[in-house]
């Protein structure tokens, strides 16, 4: 008998108290928690919370100017720019060299790059979190990991209120990284130290569309329906098993 | 109101003055106290030490002795917790349907003293007089099993002449834990030392609590160290009046 059969057999033997009429997809789970703890001003909240985690956050209409300023401030010379990053957001000319990931950069090249600039898939206001899904402008995961400096541009309309809203809007099958501030450890006498293995510095620029008053509250994102993800391609559709008390 | 007193074996033997105080207090408030003499013990020590079958006869006796009362009071948070939370466990595991039904009826009618006064009788000012510096230790079972919250403190605040001192780290366990103190003497003593330190830091003359077991534990050290800090069960402070020569 294979170990698979052994383990599954033991589980079934252990669960004799569960009635046959109860199946995994008919169980209802109470779901009385809030979809969001954010207030109306998700942009303001995101900036405050991301800053709480020692990221530097700025808000601008002019992405290019903000990126240029960041490049100058950190004296970036060799910067990784993933495919799909908007050219109009990059500093036009100057002293920096653009590193493309096509063909893929080696780990040594990434390790010695002075920084990386990316977009993101989403951002979460309550937790000050960036969600990366390796989409256009973000590149593969290693790009935001090895360089010592990460500059991330967030469009204001990408900011959602809270964790549930974010998870309902992303595709779980993409490689996902949730980033909240620079890497950190508290392993030595619980004293927080930033920049252990990931980038030591995380800068975030929130890009507002032209004509948007920057002090104004952003409209909240409409709540997306939870995507139903097939079990596996060609498999049966999942039935949602949650109930919300009416 | 007719109230049955469950004195607990521990108070009966070591702290009869607590029982006398409960009777005096409730009679002063105009209630009739009855003491069913067939009572013995709630079975907590046996249950918590793993001797469940041995506790069955005590559960059975308790359910029988108190069957005829709408309201039962006990001056012990941990015994009240045992009855309310665990009598049904023992009845379910070892008893028959008749005992289970009896336990389901009786257990919810059992109240710890501060619960009885505040929730059932609706009084917080019991017209007591106790002109001393007092600090209150919330015992674990009253706090986290019965959830008495601030009821004992509300009762104490209403006592005339009292000077109530706040106990630092009040919700920390004193380290008694029944047979824990014997099975793990070193840890118990370390916990006790910290609790005693906190009690001493308040400058109180008297330590009070709703459980004589924890009080015996803490005062055992207070006395050994000759701190001069006395200990009194909550009932004894609430029973005290101007006429008492204290």
């Amino acid at each position, binding site marked *: 008998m294979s*170990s698979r059969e*052994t383990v599954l057999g*033991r*589980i079934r033997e252990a*669960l004799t*108290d569960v009635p046959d009429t109860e199946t*995994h997809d008919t*169980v209802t789970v109470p*779901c*009385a928690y809030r979809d969001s703890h954010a207030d109306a001003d998700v942009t303001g909240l995101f900036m405050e919370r991301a800053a709480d*985690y020692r990221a530097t956050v700025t808000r601008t209409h002019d992405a290019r100017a903000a990126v240029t300023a960041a490049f100058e401030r950190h004296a970036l010379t060799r910067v990784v720019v993933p495919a799909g990053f908007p050219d109009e957001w990059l500093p036009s000319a100057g002293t920096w060299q653009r590193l493309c990931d096509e063909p893929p950069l080696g780990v040594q090249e990434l390790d010695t790059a002075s920084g990386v600039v990316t977009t993101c898939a989403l951002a979460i206001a309550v937790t000050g979190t960036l969600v990366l899904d390796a989409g256009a402008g973000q590149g*593969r*995961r*290693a790009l935001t990991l090895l360089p010592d400096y990460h500059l991330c541009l967030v469009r204001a309309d990408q900011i959602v209120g809270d*964790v*549930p809203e974010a*998870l309902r809007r992303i595709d*779980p099958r993409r*490689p*996902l*990284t*949730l980033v*909240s*501030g620079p*890497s*950190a450890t*508290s*392993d030595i*006498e619980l*004293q927080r*130290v930033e920049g252990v*293995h990931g980038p030591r510095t995380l800068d975030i620029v929130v890009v507002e569309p032209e004509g948007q008053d920057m002090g104004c509250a952003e409209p909240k994102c409409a709540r997306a329906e939870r995507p139903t993800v097939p079990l*596996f391609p060609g498999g049966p559709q999942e039935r949602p098993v949650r109930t919300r008390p009416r | 109101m007719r109230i049955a007193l469950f004195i607990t074996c521990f108070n*009966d033997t*070591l702290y009869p003055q607590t*029982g006398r105080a409960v009777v005096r207090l409730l009679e002063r408030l105009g209630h009739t106290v009855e*003491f*069913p003499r*067939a009572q*013995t013990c709630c079975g907590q*020590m046996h249950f*918590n030490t*793993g*001797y*469940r079958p041995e506790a069955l006869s*005590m559960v059975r006796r308790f359910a029988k002795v108190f069957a005829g009362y709408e309201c039962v009071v006990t001056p012990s948070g941990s015994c009240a917790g045992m009855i309310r939370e665990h009598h049904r466990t023992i009845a379910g595991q070892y008893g028959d349907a008749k005992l289970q039904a009896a336990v389901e009826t009786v257990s919810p009618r059992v109240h710890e003293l501060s619960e009885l006064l505040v929730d059932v009788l609706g009084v917080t000012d019991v017209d007591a007089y106790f002109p001393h510096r007092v600090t209150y230790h919330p015992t674990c*079972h009253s706090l*986290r099993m019965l959830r008495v919250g601030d009821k004992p403190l509300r009762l104490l605040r209403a006592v005339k002449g009292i000077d109530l001192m706040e106990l630092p780290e009040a*919700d920390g366990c004193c380290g008694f*834990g*029944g*047979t*824990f103190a*014997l099975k793990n*003497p*070193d*840890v118990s003593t370390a916990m*006790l030392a910290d609790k005693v330190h906190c009690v001493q830091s308040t400058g109180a003359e008297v330590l009070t609590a709703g459980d004589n077991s924890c009080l015996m534990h803490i005062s055992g*050290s207070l006395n*050994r160290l000759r701190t001069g800090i006395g200990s009194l069960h909550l009932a004894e402070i609430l029973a005290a009046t101007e006429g008492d020569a204290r």
Partner: protein
Amino acid sequence: MSGTTADSLVWLGTPSFPEAARTAVADGRLRANLRGATRTIRARRSTLAAELSDWEELRTSAAAVKRNALRHLDTHLIRLEAAVTAAGGTVHWAADAAEANRIVTGLVAATGEREVVKVKSMATQEIGLNEALATAGIRAYETDLAELIVQLGDDRPSHILVPAIHKNRSEIRDLFRDSMAAWGRPAPEGLSDDPAALAEAARRHLREKFLRVKVAVSGANFAAADTGTVAVVESEGNGRMCLTLPDTLITVMGIEKVLPSFADLEVFLQLLPRSSTGERMNPYTSLWTGTTDGDGPQDFHLVLLDNGRTATLRDTVGRQALACIRCSACLNVCPVYERTGGHSYGSVYPGPIGAVLTPQLAGIEHAPSLPFASTLCGACYDACPVKIDIPEVLVHLRARAVDSKRGPVPTAEALVMKAAAATLATPHTLTAAQWVGALGGRLLSRQGVLRSLPGPLAHWSRTRDTPAPARGTFRAWWRRTHRQEGR
């Protein structure tokens, strides 16, 4: 019968809890470290839990999700296996520690590599994977800072979240100075004991490995059965390094970590960081589904580990311990853990959750003192984000421990308990005993106080005075004063 043995939990066989605790309690520096650390994390946790008005609703949902996961564990694991396989991963099943170690060792050997980098993982500690790899000539490098500290010191972790909580900065500095060279890049000359400098030394030491080593081993915080997505929650970025840079990734996951659906993460990713480190969100969470072309390891293996979990599942009361998400909130609020530290529990799972998990995973006969390592104060239950009623499981396991010793020859304790039960059986026997006790107490006491007690009670009276039994019991007073109502 589940094939669990005491060998599956690597360190059992250390002294019983009370003995180990005696040593720990006597260590002043350890106690100060623990006191400072637990208090700090405790305060952070309660602040951040209080920030969410629906904390209780989140806990209720989390408990219900875990309950569903466990009650239908076979179905969910089959769904997980299908989803991971469809996404390009390979799923393996391990009935016990030895088998899991065999699987992982075989997978590493197949790559031809002799080194692996590791993400902090309780499951691989539980099965003693590093030792098994070493036997096969494969070097495993721990990459979490605290795990590195523990590994360099040939030590054991003492906390789920901060495994080196028992070490302070100067001890760590000495360790880096003396041991780093044997494992790779040495510590820099003149290393100070400043935490930032120590972290920097670890960064340099490990970066060289991250860039070089081709195989990684991780644990998993969660795995979603519907999508096959696996999650690792971390702070330092060592997790991201291991999950992203190598060619081969082997994840060892206890079968109880499966969640019915990806959507469930919306509950757990709110509860876990707040309960664990007292943060709104940990710096890095990685979620991956099988393999992705051109991004990360192209060879992914998921090892599903039983190792006593199905035996635990058999106990309808005890099985709730399998809902644990390893946040360590219970350790940080536990007054016993705060005094003893993690090593006293003799297992990779310390504190209150360890006291209910270890005896079940290893068999209660291998850890009979652990269910008694608690005052039942209940602080752990209040702090647990998935509402494991640890006190309930503790007393349940105590009964199992006592019942396992019942036999023709009762233990001394059983005789005492039997005698006590007989005494408490009727008011008459109780009254008789009270009378004898009062007489004895009066003979032995001075001014109503007993200063030393005999036998096992001597532990008690070493530091505590005890009131002698009262001259008159309450029931005697009642008889005298309330004759007419007496029944």
